[in-house]
């Protein structure tokens, strides 16, 4: 047990830290964070710089453009990026969901076709899993794909698809066999979002921002071989996606929370937080952050030693989401009635207001807390299936 960097890790960290200092705009790390509105152009530019410097796909196989590095490097990358508040790569869905699934299920041609532009940020991915009638219940998907010659013809509607409005590709769960049982009738398509018949409609969230989208498919024709796995294997392929979403998410969540805890401390120092009741809660957020961090690292160590992430990793998303909700509420409460302003004139121009509202989605998206507790109880602790 050694919580410190190995010489290799330390060298990687030092190089990255220097690169971030050199590459980010001057004063970036100390700036007051801006409200959540997302700057696409800046993100694309940053993505390119990350890619050119070799910081994208650190742990992915080298043959498809990855870095072939150990998982700790990815952890260090996320830690250091969070510490200075560096932007994300634009391909969040591609890196976290589509890419790992293609690596696991794709043919060699598919890997060569899709992975390099995904890493470079030249092609952005989105996902089409949830539907209006089936949010958490993936097996209830009703979007259908029917074979017509050498093409699948897709009709249906997906929802909660982030990045769909700028996406080039979509990982899409469709029903190809309506006669099969719920799970068995599903397949997993890779759909070009520029195909005629694909319509993206932004869906405004509680924050007022259209972060997610509805995606409508009307007679969308998809080449027959644009499928991961075989027809009917969609459920298993999708489970790989969700496993990766939930599995590799831990470090990204730690990084996000670390940034928020730093912001909270900065805010408390600015507005004054002498009330011991407030200080007690700030300390709790900090403790919750460290608990998340080291729980992820424990899971990672198991992954490196055994090839399987440790079971403790299953708590990351659940713990993060509830912590982030508490943290953002606490940040608002430091502002008195001014907490209710959300634009000019608000503290930090409304950064916290945006974050607090946005946080309510944390316990819903990417597995509701209810579903995650089911998973922990049943798959990790081994209780019988809840009814």
């Amino acid at each position, binding site marked *: 047990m050694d919580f410190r960097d190995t010489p290799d890790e330390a060298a990687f960290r030092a190089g990255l830290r220097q690169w971030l200092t050199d590459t980010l705009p001057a004063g970036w790390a100390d700036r007051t964070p801006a409200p959540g509105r997302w700057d696409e152009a800046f993100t694309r530019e940053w993505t390119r710089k990350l890619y050119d410097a070799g910081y994208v796909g650190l742990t992915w196989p080298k043959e498809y453009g990855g870095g072939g590095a150990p998982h700790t490097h990815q952890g260090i990358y996320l830690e250091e990026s969070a510490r200075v508040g560096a932007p994300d790569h634009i391909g969040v869905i591609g890196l976290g969901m589509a890419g790992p699934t293609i690596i696991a299920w794709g043919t060699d041609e598919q890997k060569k076709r899709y992975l390099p532009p995904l890493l470079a940020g030249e092609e952005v991915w989105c996902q089409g899993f*949830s539907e209006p*009638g*089936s*949010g*958490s*219940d993936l097996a*209830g998907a009703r979007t259908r794909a029917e074979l017509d010659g050498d093409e699948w013809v897709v009709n249906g509607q997906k*929802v*909660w698809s982030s990045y769909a409005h700028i996406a080039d590709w979509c990982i899409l769960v469709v029903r190809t066999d309506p006669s099969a049982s719920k799970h068995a009738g599903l397949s997993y398509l890779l759909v070009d979002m520029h195909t005629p018949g694909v319509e993206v409609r932004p*869906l*405004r*969230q*509680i*924050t*007022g921002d259209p972060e*997610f989208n509805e995606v409508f498919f009307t007679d969308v024709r998809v080449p027959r071989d644009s499928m991961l796995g075989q027809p009917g294997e969609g459920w298993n392929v999708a489970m790989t996606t969700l496993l990766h979403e939930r599995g590799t998410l831990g470090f990204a969540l730690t990084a996000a929370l670390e940034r928020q805890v730093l912001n909270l401390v900065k805010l408390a120092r600015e507005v004054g937080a002498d*009330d011991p*009741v*407030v200080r007690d809660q700030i300390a709790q957020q900090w403790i919750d952050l460290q608990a998340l961090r080291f729980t992820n690292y424990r899971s990672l160590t198991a992954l490196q030693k055994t090839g399987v992430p440790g079971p403790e990793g299953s708590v990351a998303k659940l713990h993060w989401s509830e912590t982030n*909700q508490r943290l953002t509420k606490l940040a*608002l*409460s430091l*502002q*008195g*009635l*001014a*907490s*209710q*302003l*959300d*634009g*000019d*004139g*608000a503290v930090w121009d*409304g950064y916290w*207001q945006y974050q607090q*509202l946005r946080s*309510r*989605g944390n*316990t*819903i*998206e990417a597995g*509701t*807390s*209810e579903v995650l*507790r*089911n998973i922990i109880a049943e798959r990790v602790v081994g209780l019988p299936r809840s009814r």
Partner: protein
Amino acid sequence: MDFAFSSEQEQLRASVRDYLRDRYGDERVVALAESDAGWDPSSWRELADMGWLDPSLGLLEHAVIAEESAYALLPAPWFATVALAWPLLDEQLRDAVAAGERSVTLARHGSVTADAGGDTLTGVATLVPDLTSVTDVLVVADGGVYAVEATPDVVVPRSTMDRTRRLGELRLDRTPARRLDASFGPEVRRRSLALASCEAVGVAQRALDLAAAYTKTREQFGRVIGTYQAVSHKVADIFVALQLGRSLAYWAAWAVSEDDPQADVAVSAAKSAATEGAVLACEYAIQAHGGIGFTYEHVLHRYYKRAQWLEAFEGYGRDHRAAVAAAILDSEGAVA
């Protein structure tokens, strides 16, 4: 002992509820909230006609209206006028309010001073509720209370999460003001806390109704989601928080209306429990709705924002609990 509203008060409640159901369905409320004005100024006269602004109403009647108007999320400066400015109005303003001609809010944060001569004010007051909707604003300055017209030249709107109760900034520069024969004292704050608590109860009740209606019908994994304890027990917890907050809010309203010795602790207890309960109710309701409850399209977030507005108004729960602690721990007369 009698812990229920009188039959007259219950009749008032029914009439308020009927009016709001008829005139302020969710669609209209949302449209008004998204409009520049944020409300329908012509409706003020309607409220007056129905007697909601009548000087004869007591605090318990106000409590009923506060609860029901928050249940509908009525966008109007009724809270500003009745919960904030009301006790400070002089006869002239009170009559104009009762006639539906004037609406008033109260500005008490910031720094405003009376100029030499005493008939103009200069300075800035911040976080003034419904400032953009009212005709007049009472300003607390130099220990006195002044009435100022809320004309566009002195009013700066501020973007507010709760678009049905926006905050504004008042910028006065030798602005004509009329000194009232009133002083801002703790009874004004008590009153506003009691009525804010009643509003929180209305918000929590609506959150419960929305959560119950949705979880009774929405299906996932082949079952109505209200049959999952992970969902139904949260709905039960909303009910618990609602009822506890309601009991305290009614107590607070009664204690303030009677100038009861426990009025101060009652309003602090009610404010902390009822507004935190309303926030919890909305959060659980959003969670029970899943993604749809997180959209701007759904009405739930508007209640959530009102709940948070109320929680932030005049001190968060911990501030009120500190006041309660002082009352029960630091004085010898047992408050319990």
